[in-house]
């Protein structure tokens, strides 16, 4: 009985998001005739959103455990710089000759993802073993990771990648851009992990009540360390798309994504206090944000005006969530008292 109720509330949140998403698309189709609802515009959006979408997924997982990961962008930049340096150092001599280039590209991506996992591991260890609050731990590592990136590049962009690497950001398989396919794959994997594996269940439990999960025999530490490693890996994947699209790697790319990633997670129904949230909601949040972003660009808004709107949206969404959860609680109490009276 209570299970069914739980599913019902999840569904209403997802339904509301779906309605908002479709509503926004319909409104924009009429407001921007001939500009918005075109295959080209949708394709260009499909190239743009995966990089921050992956960061938003990373943020989502961290927030489900009741934490937050402020270091996602610093991790992405650092791993991007590592991949870029491997590629530019080894490929200068051969001038990006094809057969050898592929192996270097694969090596670079592999090294970058390992670095990303190590970044996540450090976050996880600081949070679970040392006991640093997630905000602080990831604030410290954010400054540290971007500091490493800054120290090895002195702030200059690393440029010039082989063509095979640029395919990640610019390629297309049939009608579908490669970034979109990577994003879809990652979202499906994360959704599978959260919904179908015991690790996913533990992750929600740790987020909902760490003390209870500890006393029910869950090793909170391992769950937290794994969570932040996945977060780091997602940031690493995002960075591969990002540096491939820019054809360069540099400290400070994607700084605005931090606010957007948190906004999307909250918009997608993730509870910042932990224990609650669905990948499908976050994906819809990402689409809504990207569609609005696209419309604002077509309207010609400045980046500051966009920041203004995102900030306002973030606060409004949280206020609305506060209102609805309070309403739900009140109606729940009313229902319970009604039942008592009936009994």
């Amino acid at each position, binding site marked *: 009985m209570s299970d069914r109720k739980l599913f019902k509330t999840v569904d209403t949140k997802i339904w509301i998001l779906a309605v908002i998403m479709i509503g926004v698309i319909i409104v924009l189709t009429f407001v921007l005739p001939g500009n918005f609802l075109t295959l080209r515009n949708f394709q260009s959006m499909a190239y743009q959103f995966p990089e921050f979408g992956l960061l938003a997924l990373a943020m989502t997982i961290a927030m489900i455990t009741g934490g937050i990961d402020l270091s996602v962008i610093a991790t992405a930049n650092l791993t991007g710089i590592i991949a870029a340096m491997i590629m530019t150092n080894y490929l200068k001599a051969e001038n990006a000759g094809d057969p050898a280039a592929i192996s270097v590209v694969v090596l670079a991506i592999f090294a970058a993802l390992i670095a990303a996992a190590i970044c996540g591991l450090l976050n996880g260890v600081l949070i679970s073993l040392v006991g640093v609050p997630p905000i602080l731990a990831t604030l410290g590592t954010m400054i540290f990771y971007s500091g490493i990136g800054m120290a090895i590049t002195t702030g200059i962009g690393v440029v010039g990648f082989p063509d095979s690497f640029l395919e990640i950001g610019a390629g297309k398989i049939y009608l579908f851009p490669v970034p979109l396919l990577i994003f879809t794959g990652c979202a499906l994997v994360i959704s599978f992990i959260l919904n179908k594996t015991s690790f996913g269940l533990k992750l929600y439990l740790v987020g909902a009540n760490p003390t209870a999960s500890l006393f029910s025999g869950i090793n909170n530490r391992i769950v937290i360390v794994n969570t932040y490693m996945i977060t780091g890996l997602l940031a690493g994947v995002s960075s591969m798309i990002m540096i491939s699209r820019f054809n360069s790697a540099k400290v400070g790319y994607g700084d605005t994504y931090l606010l957007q990633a948190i906004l999307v997670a*909250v918009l997608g129904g993730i509870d910042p206090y932990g224990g609650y949230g669905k990948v499908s909601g976050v994906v819809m949040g990402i689409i809504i944000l990207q569609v609005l972003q696209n419309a604002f660009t077509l309207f010609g808004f400045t980046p500051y005006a966009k920041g*203004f709107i995102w900030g306002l949206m973030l606060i409004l969404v949280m206020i609305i969530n506060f209102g609805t959860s309070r309403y739900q609680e009140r109606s729940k109490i009313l229902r319970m008292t009604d039942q008592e009276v009936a009994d």
Partner: protein
Amino acid sequence: MLDKLLKKHETYLFLIIIAYAVIVTSVNRSFMTFENLFDILRSGAGMGILAMGVLVALLSGGIDVSFTAVAISGGYIAVRVIMATGVDNLFVAFVISCSIGIFLGLINGLIISYFKLPTLIATLGTLNVFHGALTTFVGTESVNARQMPSCFVHFGSAKIITLANDQGSIYGLSVFVIPLIAVIVMTWFILRFTMLGRGIYAIGSNRESAKRAGFNITALQLFVYSYVGFLAGIMGVVFVSEVRWVNPVTLIGTELTVIAAVVIGGTKLTGGSGTILGTLLGVAIVTVLYNTLVLLGLSAAWNNFFVGIIIIISIGITSYRNKIKNRKSLSFKT
């Protein structure tokens, strides 16, 4: 006596500063001069003022990251108003900047206390809202040194003490230490001697008990965030006078460095624990590192690398001690 000192976080911070000073001085003689010291004080004054606000916010169990947007809004609008009206008075500048600061801080406080939102995410939102509003509705035009009203220029170059170095060029202690000291004393007084200060510590360490004890949580939170805004307003004027050039997009992005400094100082993010002395030492470490790595022959690109390491080690030690203590008292909060 020694035992007591060794238990204190501040002692270690002090030792770090001394060790660093010894290393730098052995490499480069120009570190241990009054000229360098005064220079560090001048450039650290703004951060010190902001850090006092952050300390109060952290003590109350919250966090505020919007203060850079508040500071630049206050400073920039003050400059523009003074340029437009021609009232060339520093006092007026402070009044304008601080009123804007208090107003924006009140907005933060209202949102946080009324809707009970997570403070980090809420103020991250208002950071963008305040900054977006400033750049969209007030403008993005920068004001350069020649247009800058003379009251700011005088304030920026005024000295309390002037000395001359070996080459005969004159340097001195900037007048910025006056607002810095005033803010420190004011914060110290509030935290140490008033019911308000007790309340801030109380809601930070245990909100529920503070409520039962009769503290008005909404009023306290409103005070905390408007106080942060007020200090940001003061810092806005100091910052504008320091660089003598103002552009509404500067300063944004430095908020995490200030928070890092406060955290290095041993203030707990979970609230209720933290000292003014620790905060000042934290600010000193960050400012000294940012300004003097060059003297060691390292470029400024290494700044964040070292600051990051210090933060991780410093918060690591504080949190681990706390964790051990919690485990001993059978508290399993993570």
